């Protein structure tokens, strides 16, 4: 389990290109680094629930990101906080 403050990277993965899927990791965060704010609990994996398949419980985290640098509309210091499942996150040393 990731502790609060852990730097993580969202997997740069595109299941959309491999057939029918349902994922709750927004495209604009794929491959981006953020910081775990806190563990939110364990929840059934929506990627399986969406197809009425047996769904394992997965850790869910609140993760904080700086907006992508290519978006120029933001004010410095503003952040985006997103719920992400453990299997989308990789530890950053």
């Amino acid at each position, binding site marked *: 389990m990731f502790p609060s403050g852990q730097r993580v990277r969202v997997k740069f993965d595109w299941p959309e290109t491999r057939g029918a899927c349902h994922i*709750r*990791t*927004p495209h*604009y965060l794929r491959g981006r680094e953020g910081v775990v704010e806190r563990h*939110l*609990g364990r*929840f059934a994996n*929506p990627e399986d629930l969406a197809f009425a398949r047996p769904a394992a419980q997965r850790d*869910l985290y609140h993760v*904080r990101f700086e*907006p992508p640098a290519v*978006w120029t*509309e*933001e*004010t410095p*210091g*503003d*952040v*985006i*906080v*997103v*719920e*992400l*499942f453990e299997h989308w996150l990789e530890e950053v040393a």
Partner: protein
Amino acid sequence: MNILQTDSQKLLDGVLALLSHKGIVTPDEITARIASTDAASPAQGARMVARAWLDPEFRALMLRDGTQAAEDSGIPMRGLPPLGVLENTETVHHLVVCTLCSCYPRAVLGYPPFWFKSAAYRARAVRDPRGLIGEWGTVLPAGVHLRVVDSTADYRWMVLPRRPAGTEGWTADQLAALVREGDMIGVTIPTIP
């Protein structure tokens, strides 16, 4: 023609007729469900906010366990997604969006408003949040950082706004009457009319 492209009202009527015939969902159940869903409204969330402004213990509970705080306020939460509460402070303002669909704290605020479900809101909230809330005339004071919460998974999020200055001595009812739907999503800030 793909059967799913049938006119929506007709498709609904056909599905309802079959489900009723099969005993899966009856017309009476639909009527009762509409009545109970209609009963949820932003007034419920507003009462929680007013109570949090007056009662530090309830405020602490609300921030620690929004689901329990809602239950304590008479809102049944059993079987519903957990409620998370985001506290606005002198230096932090929160804005809630669901960029993937329309996740909304329905238990405490009722049906999501039209704008919350719109493509423009969903797209702009994470990229141009200050421009977006400007559409409501909302301008954050200098030095306030914005945290945009993209509601992507199992929680539902509401904002605990700041109590407006000039409301000292107000009752819970008076305070609750100030709090609007948008204040609890972060597009507006409570003000004295």
